[in-house]
């Protein structure tokens, strides 16, 4: 009997002789499978893995390997002198560490609830933060050793509009589940990790950005007027393909507009809370999952809540420092 080739592979050979030779080689290749005799057995490896799962924050095994491979440092013969040396070295190290820390300490910009702030970053890029948003970056975009970091990295929780100065170093916005990489452009990122429908929304106005997420290294590149969504809930985290969006709607918040597109009522109410710094309570029988779509121009919190009530068929009453939402009386 002839040794068997996978069917697709057999089809690739048009003469039977060549196919047979390939089949012979295919068979022989079984012996060339990598030799795994030198590594821990699967059960030992599993035990090791479970131990590491139980102690969070352990270094990866590759990192520990490197450390173990390093040659041991020989103890110095003249201990007394060495001790002086150690003292001085420790002082220098402390000074250096403090300097390092100062040079690249984390800077946090925060727009509190009901507030909207504009800021300029160390590279001249400007940002507008929406209410209830924090943005963190290393002072001066510096890395260890007083050097410039390889990227201009910021971490965003909330919503912000970016006008990025072009530069050689990529500008990277990290959210709870995605990364947006740019070189110089205007774009909006919305990422409220605590929303019911938690997702990172990226909308591009000008230039070009790449959005990636999680383990799947499939970056989506946006053209002006396009948007992508990175969602945490549905399966593995990955950006959706680019879709065209109405920019005036997507960026309306900067001019005081309020837009919700097919969002759960819970998230819409949270957005109102963040925007106006109010507290909204809901009656138990209000369905927080129902989807709501709203396009509203600039208005007061009260006017907005009235419009929302009308659109959604709900009852809104002012309460101290906010509103109470209930279903309409029958």
């Amino acid at each position, binding site marked *: 009997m002839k040794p068997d080739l996978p069917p697709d592979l057999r089809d690739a050979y048009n003469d039977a002789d060549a196919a047979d030779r390939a089949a012979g080689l295919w068979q022989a290749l079984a012996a060339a499978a990598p030799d795994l005799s030198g590594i821990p057995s699967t059960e030992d490896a599993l035990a090791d893995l479970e131990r590491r799962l139980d102690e969070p924050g352990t270094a990866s095994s590759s990192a520990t390997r490197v450390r173990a491979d390093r040659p041991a440092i020989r103890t110095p013969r003249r201990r007394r002198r060495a001790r002086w040396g150690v003292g001085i070295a420790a002082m220098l190290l402390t000074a250096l560490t403090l300097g390092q820390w100062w040079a690249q300490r984390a800077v946090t910009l925060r727009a509190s609830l009901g507030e909207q702030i504009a800021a300029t970053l160390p590279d001249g890029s400007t940002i507008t933060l929406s209410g209830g948003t924090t943005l963190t970056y290393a002072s001066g975009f510096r890395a260890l050793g007083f050097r410039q970091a390889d990227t201009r990295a910021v971490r965003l929780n909330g919503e912000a509009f970016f006008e990025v100065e072009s530069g050689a170093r990529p500008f990277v916005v990290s959210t709870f589940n995605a990364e947006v990489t740019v070189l110089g452009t205007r774009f909006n990122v919305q990422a409220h990790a605590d929303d019911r429908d938690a997702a990172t929304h990226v909308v591009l106005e000008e230039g070009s950005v790449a959005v990636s997420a999680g*383990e799947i290294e499939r970056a989506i590149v946006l053209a002006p007027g396009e948007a992508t969504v990175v969602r945490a809930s549905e399966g593995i985290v990955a950006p959706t393909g680019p879709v065209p969006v109405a920019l005036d709607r997507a960026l309306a918040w900067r001019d005081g507009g309020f837009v919700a597109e097919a969002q759960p009522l819970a998230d819409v109410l949270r957005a109102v809370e963040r925007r106006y710094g109010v507290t909204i309570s809901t009656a138990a029988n209000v369905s927080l999952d129902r989807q709501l779509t709203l396009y509203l121009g600039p208005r007061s919190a009260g006017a907005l809540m009235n419009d929302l009530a009308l659109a959604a068929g709900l009852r809104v009453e002012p309460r101290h420092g906010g509103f109470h939402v209930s279903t309409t009386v029958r």
Partner: protein
Amino acid sequence: MAPLPTPPSSTDDPTLSALCRRIRASDRAAFADLFRTLRVSLVRYATSFTGDAAAAHDLVQDVFLKLWQIRTNLDPSQPIQGLLFRMARNRALNLQRNRRRRRAKHDSIRLENDSSLAPVERVDADRLAARLRSWMADLPDRQREAISLTRFQHLSHDQAAAVMGCAPRTVNNHIVRGLATIQARLDAFNAADRA
């Protein structure tokens, strides 16, 4: 048509997606089962990039750690096997890149690889396996990867294509080209041996 040869249990998708569902719900026993099913395949696959099994073992451990960390984001309708192979692949490629960088820095002159040495000893099974292994190592990355996935990991062309991020046809082309190269070296080797 002759019935297709049944692939080994590692490609048994219904079982794997059931495991995936249980892992999503933080079931450690299911995690252990998945590890037992796929670990050796993954280490072998990673070895086709790293060249040494110890590094491959390390990175596969990291892959499973990471899998546990992202368990709540798993999608049982997507083949988890493909995800694991891709994760291993990304890590292996990173490792390869870092090593190359380090190597370029420290010693710009590398030893010529010794697989082109003239054959002297009698070809017994072990020697042939060693030759085949070193010829595999000399193949371009994509060809080696395609052969490793289909031959050693018993993935179908479609599954290999999903891991490699290309069309099944392309996988086939990589295999055919890789096999042709190895066949040529084997022929040359046999001829020299006879002479």
